[in-house]
């Protein structure tokens, strides 16, 4: 009943214009990126670095799940969006994955942590041995809902990083900033896909709330653990620590998302009229992609071979 009501009042997209999603085959060279790519601020560096720990396995998992959902999509336009989404996510996963060997070269081996994230996405959230039919479909819906909740946060972070001018002022490494903003822009660009797919496949409000709670708690758990892991194992820090206070302070300075904005994003997603297109700006994302060195190089390379 509840989801019927929800669709009646409808989470409606605010923008009518739609753009075709296209995977851009980017590449970054990391040779010149220093360990602390936000100069003199290991905490900010490592807090953002946690992305490189979570995204390779996480976005690979998105692709894996969405491949299984494709046959259930009955809307042709949504299907095309999902196909574009898969390609973009696969590229994100690989782009972040390529940072990991560079971190290892700089003396910060991420493997103990990434091996756990791999376990989580490959085993815990993988295809479980379930009887075919209801149980399998339930598990698939549950994962689609989880992805929609996670994508709420990736779009939030994408929007944040596109506007994080403080990072430029502090002289952050341009290659790393381009990776984050290219990724962020594509997240903003496709921010509605995961939610639309969830609405199409299931759309139940209770499932949305339940999976949001799981995703949020897990993200907070993994993120603080990742930041601590990096700070403790950073070879240049004698007594590296990560604390919530540091996070809150950096948020106020504009180096990290602010605590207030993060808290405000909670009721936004839980509102019955929520639709991702209400947040972030597609124009800004598209504008960045038109100027991003990596994205421009990818488009030129593709036109060269085509």
């Amino acid at each position, binding site marked *: 009943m509840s989801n019927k009501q929800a669709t009646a009042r409808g989470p409606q997209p605010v923008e009518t214009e739609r753009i075709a999603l296209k*995977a851009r*085959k980017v590449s970054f060279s990391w040779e010149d990126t220093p360990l602390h790519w936000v100069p003199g601020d290991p905490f900010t560096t490592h807090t953002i670095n946690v992305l490189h*720990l979570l995204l*390779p*396995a996480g976005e*690979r998992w998105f*692709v894996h799940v969405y*491949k299984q959902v*494709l*046959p259930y999509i009955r809307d042709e336009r949504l299907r095309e969006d999902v*196909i*574009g989404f*898969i*390609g973009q*996510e*696969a*590229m994100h996963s*690989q782009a972040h*994955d*390529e940072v*990991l*060997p560079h971190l*290892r070269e700089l003396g910060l081996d*991420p*493997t*103990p*942590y*990434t*091996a*756990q*994230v*791999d*376990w*989580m996405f*490959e*085993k815990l959230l993988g295809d479980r041995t379930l009887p075919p039919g209801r149980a399998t479909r339930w598990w698939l819906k549950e994962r689609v809902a989880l992805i929609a909740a996670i994508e709420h946060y990736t779009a939030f972070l994408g929007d944040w990083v596109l506007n994080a001018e403080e990072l430029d002022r502090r002289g952050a490494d341009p290659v790393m900033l381009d990776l984050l903003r290219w990724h962020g822009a594509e997240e903003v660009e496709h921010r509605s896909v995961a939610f639309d797919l969830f609405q199409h496949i299931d759309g139940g409000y209770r499932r949305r709330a339940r999976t949001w709670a799981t995703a949020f708690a897990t993200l907070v758990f993994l993120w603080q*653990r990742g930041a*601590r*892991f990096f700070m*403790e194992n950073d070879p240049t820090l004698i007594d590296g620590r990560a604390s919530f206070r540091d996070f809150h302070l950096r948020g106020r300075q504009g180096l990290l998302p602010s605590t207030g904005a993060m808290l405000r994003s909670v009721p936004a997603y839980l509102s019955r009229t929520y639709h991702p297109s209400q947040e972030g700006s597609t124009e800004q994302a598209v504008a960045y992609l038109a100027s991003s060195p990596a994205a421009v190089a990818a488009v030129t390379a*593709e036109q060269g071979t085509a």
Partner: protein
Amino acid sequence: MMPKLRTAVVVAGAALLARRAVRRRIQASPLWPMPSLAEPISGRPRALTVTVSAHEEIADGVVQLRLEGHGLPRWEPGAHLDLVLPSGLVRQYSLCGDPEDASAYTVATRLVGDGRGGSREVHERVRPGTELQVRGPRNRFPLVEAPSYLFVAGGIGITPVLPMLRSLAERDAEWRLLYGGRTRASMPFLEEIEKLDAGRGRVTLVAEDEAGRPDLATWLGGAPKSAAVYCCGPEGLMAAVEERVPRVHLERFAPRAAAGGDVAFEVELRRSGRVVTVPADCTVLDTVRAELPDTAYSCAQGFCGTCRQRVLEGEIDHRDELLTDAERDDSMLICVSRARGDRLVLDL
């Protein structure tokens, strides 16, 4: 009153103990309590970087490269390497150096005038100091246990055979080699092969300009049934050997139609019971989607892995940058990869 107080004290004590235990556990291993994947996937190096340290012509039109790197994976005789050339072309070359050497790989390549450009690039653009990416090594031509061995090598096809001979010579196993080429000057490694033979007449060298084509029938005729037969060389030679000894182990160093770009081939979709022909200018994905529109795909450029399909039969010409060696054994990305032979069977 008393029992309640006692309960409270016991509970508080237990909680304190539990907290201390957890703290200690976390101190011992900060990433506790999550399990981890035994063979992590994230952050795995996709390709190794090697530097060309030597580039020499070891026979007419044959160039040998020494590729130096750090901690290179070991390999077994018969293995080959994917070499990513400066232009982005990916070509396979058999390893012909020392398998125990973890600091360098050695490959040899012949300049093919009408080839797909890979050999020309190795001969002309690759120089000492050039950095290259390599993937592998992989082995689809492994040396099996056998009472005796027969090798037929044609020209540059000697490269995967050479490390096998070295290893057999060390074990003092029984082997014979038929090595053919256009001229003696164009046949690499002659000196070493004669040394490996140690004057025991196990090697038959046939240069076409002196003795014509080798007489396969006679040479293979006396082979014992239990001998393992290996052949690597031009397509015609391999077909001739396979006709006489169907159990032969073959190594193709180029897809069946290396010259002149891609060719058409047949794809059987076993579960749907259909057979389609993939034209030369069309991908497997496009052809399959015309039959099965629901086939999943996304980037169509060989990096997302959405279109990966299981391959039941046929040799694959992998052109993606994603799949691991293990995955390459029995699956392919149908958006970019093609057949090495003239037929593939997909589980579709």
